[in-house]
């Protein structure tokens, strides 16, 4: 089955964005494919002005959960709504997509931070953007946005110093004599090299490396990274893998004042480690290309090669995937299991949002298994099939019903010119929602629904209100639509 140009753009925008409105498709379809990819990748050329649209007519709504108006830097539910708003409306969608990727990769949960300090401080640490804050605090998620397609080594260093991470993995408490292993373990197991590439002794040594990488609150204004020399373990640390390019496995003893370099040396080592590039390449492959079939090892190896040759740059890795010939192959269409937030953002873009508030997505997303800023643990969400269970699928079907109900009259109005027959109505719905082609049995089930209970199809407003929303509910809630 040959797919047309628009379908290739829609495929690109389901993967490198959060789906597309008809206007989005038209904009990108007007340029050569490579130019469309470059527009997505080089988003720095496009102004970051999406937040200015919050609360404006013509955009999906938000409903303040903070007591004194919409406070995304202080109230976590408002922060969740702002992120979802950006997913739906940003003109730099790949930036938001990669921020989501890093949020899962460096999975940090609000609840531990709010339990340690309070909800306002935790939201600030996670979601503040500099212009929100009197002290120009950069929340962890803004860090991910700033480095979304940047350098992995720089990102890893920034994450190691990130206040939310210092709370989440207890780095703030890691001091000489009684090291805290939490961060060092996950640095190796989850953030870079992966399980099976290191020993328990590396965890113990790694914890000592990061002693003194703590948290301070200068002038009581805000929490920030602070290297506390007096708390640093100055003895040598030995690892089972090379730390330095010359093969040395030992971080030598250093004076406390220079001890922060220990951590930078270890980060360099784990970023350079031969398991890290392939692991990141595979995660990006799964995220952008295909997570259901046997992976294309040659392509993954090539992406890993780019990681090392570029000095750990993420953008050329993603460019390699999106401009590969494989990306356009039919076998790679609809081969990702959408994450709940992707599903919600895409359905809003394809179904419509007029009169809909993102506050209404918060509980459904919880039921689908993805609450932003609350991953289940430091390994992130259980991706792929892990999203799908009877309860999780039912939550998706029921969100589809909720959105279709909310958009009932908008959909009716859109359907008026195409409501001549159940077939033409169904054709309109499928074109708007971009699922893969249904099997004949499923297509007939949709058509039978459109006809059911109507002895004489007239295309009246009543019939269109019921059956357009009903078909949108069924399509968005179908298994086929969950694949992107």
């Amino acid at each position, binding site marked *: 089955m040959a797919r047309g140009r628009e379908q290739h753009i829609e495929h690109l925008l389901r993967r490198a964005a959060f789906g597309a409105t008809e206007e989005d498709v038209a904009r990108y379809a007007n340029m050569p494919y490579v130019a469309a990819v470059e527009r997505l990748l080089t988003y720095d050329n496009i102004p970051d002005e999406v937040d200015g649209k919050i609360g404006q007519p013509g955009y999906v709504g938000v409903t303040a959960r903070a007591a004194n108006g919409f406070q995304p830097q202080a109230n976590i539910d408002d922060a969740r709504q702002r992120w979802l708003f950006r997913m739906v409306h940003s003109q730099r969608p790949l930036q938001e997509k990669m921020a989501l990727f890093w949020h899962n990769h460096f999975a940090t949960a609000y609840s531990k931070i709010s339990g340690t300090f309070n909800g306002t401080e935790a939201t600030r640490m996670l979601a503040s953007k500099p212009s929100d804050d009197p002290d120009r605090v950069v929340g962890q998620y803004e860090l991910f946005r700033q480095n979304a397609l940047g350098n992995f080594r720089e990102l890893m260093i920034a994450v190691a110093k990130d206040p939310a991470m210092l709370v989440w993995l*207890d780095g703030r408490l890691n001091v000489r004599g009684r090291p805290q292993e939490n961060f060092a373990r996950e640095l190796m197991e989850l953030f870079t090299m992966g399980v099976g590439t290191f020993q328990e002794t590396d965890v113990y040594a790694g914890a000592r490396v990061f002693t003194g990488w703590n948290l301070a609150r200068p002038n009581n204004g805000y929490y920030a990274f602070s290297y506390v020399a007096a708390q640093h373990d100055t003895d040598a640390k030995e690892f089972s893998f090379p730390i330095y390019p010359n093969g040395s496995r030992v971080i030598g003893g250093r004076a406390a004042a220079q001890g922060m370099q220990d951590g930078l040396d270890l980060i360099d080592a784990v970023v350079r480690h031969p398991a890290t590039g392939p692991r990141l390449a595979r995660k990006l492959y799964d995220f952008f290309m295909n997570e259901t079939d046997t992976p294309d090892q040659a392509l993954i190896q090539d992406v890993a090669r780019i990681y090392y040759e570029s000095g750990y740059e993420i953008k050329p890795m993603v460019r390699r995937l999106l401009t590969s010939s494989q990306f356009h192959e039919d076998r790679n269409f609809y081969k990702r299991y959408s994450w709940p937030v992707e599903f919600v953002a895409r359905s809003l873009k394809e179904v419509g949002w007029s009169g809909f508030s993102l506050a209404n997505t918060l509980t459904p997303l919880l039921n689908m298994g993805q609450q932003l800023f609350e991953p289940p643990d430091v390994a992130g969400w259980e991706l792929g099939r892990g999203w799908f269970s*009877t309860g999780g699928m039912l939550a998706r079907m029921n969100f589809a019903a909720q959105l279709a109900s909310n958009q009932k009259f908008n959909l009716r109005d859109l359907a008026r010119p195409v409501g001549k027959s159940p077939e033409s109505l169904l054709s309109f719905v499928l074109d708007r929602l971009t699922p893969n082609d249904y099997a004949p049995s499923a297509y007939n089930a949709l058509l039978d629904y459109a006809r059911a209970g109507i002895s004489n199809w007239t295309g009246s407003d009543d019939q269109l209100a019921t059956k357009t929303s009903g078909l949108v509910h069924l399509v968005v809630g179908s298994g086929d639509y969950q694949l992107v």
Partner: protein
Amino acid sequence: MAITRREFVRGGVAAFTVGFAAPAFISDLARAQGRAQRNLVILYLSGGNDALSTLIPYTDSQYYARRPTLGIPAANVLQIGSDRNGQALGLHPRLTGLKSIFDAGRLAIVQRTGYPNSSRSHFQGTDIWSTADPSSPSGTGWLGRYLDLLPSPLDPLTAWSTVRETPRTLLARTVGVPSIPSVAGYAFASPNTPTDAAFARDSALRIASHLPADQPHLAFVNSTAQGAFATLDRVAQVNTYVSTLTYPNNGFAQALRAIAGAIAKGIGTKVFWVQTGGYDTHATQGTNPANGAYTQLMATLGDGVAAFYRDLENQGLLRDTLILQFSEFSRRITENSSSGTDHGAAGLMLAIGGTVRGGLYGTAARLNPTPDNQTLENNGADVRFETDFRSVYSKVIDSWLGADANAILGGDFRAGAPNIL
């Protein structure tokens, strides 16, 4: 090289044909099964429970020496006697509900459960306890393999997970286990009238019935929708359950209440999964203060389980029910500088139920970190296992589920099994 849970889910499961029985079978199966049956409730404490704060060796001076701030004073523990080596032991002061179950002889505590070369990784550790296979912790779960041995077609409600993800313990080759985190939310919604909603449900079921062999990813997603349709009417019956007492108002206790409802309504489920988290207590563990973190964990655990136990007892269902508790590892003996504890090794398992032979099983570790101390490992840092956790599973499979433990566990662990049932 070890396989992570994530890699497994992406790769390994694709080889399985996970599906749900067709709805037509369901009502007959449920009727045939009736209500009188044995229920197994797996209770997972997520994050690695600090066994030395759950069951306290309050006469071991090394316990207090190594835990200067976290040690629970002997005067506060709920004394439950001594193990066979004469080590006096007490439950955490907040476990008053479990203490009364212990006193009734229906709580078995198996000390120092684990396995050789204990993993300190949450993810690998959980996979090992879930698969019962330390050498290759991927593939199906131990209870998934039990489900696979039951006659097919299997009623999809044979097992019920109260969390949103299907835990690996329940991962089976032949059946998808439904996740039902909220009974009330487990229903089919529609944007239109009830009449049109019925048409929509019929259509949605037909769409979900498409399980193409050449598109296993679509077949898998559709099978979860199919499973929802096959189970939601019976689950709705649990909505009308009236418990005999009020459960605590938290997610864990409410999940136990739903399980009690499912047992009382006789909807046919044999295996339940429930979990409660927050056990990864690296910092400010709060074992002692009235509102400390670990004290809160014990309150949630003890009060929830006690409510469930009393509710079932009041309904005469206690003898039908067995609760089996585990956690992925226990924690380091010596507290860290943040008044917390890092990842350790062997921990404890609890078994609770109307036919449980209550008491203390196994022996406590001696906590002196000297080289001759064979009850410790990792240079005296962690507790070494004494009872292989698979022997406990073996006992449960043989004596409670009535299946063949050796077939399910892929080996014979009966020899060391504590006689808890």
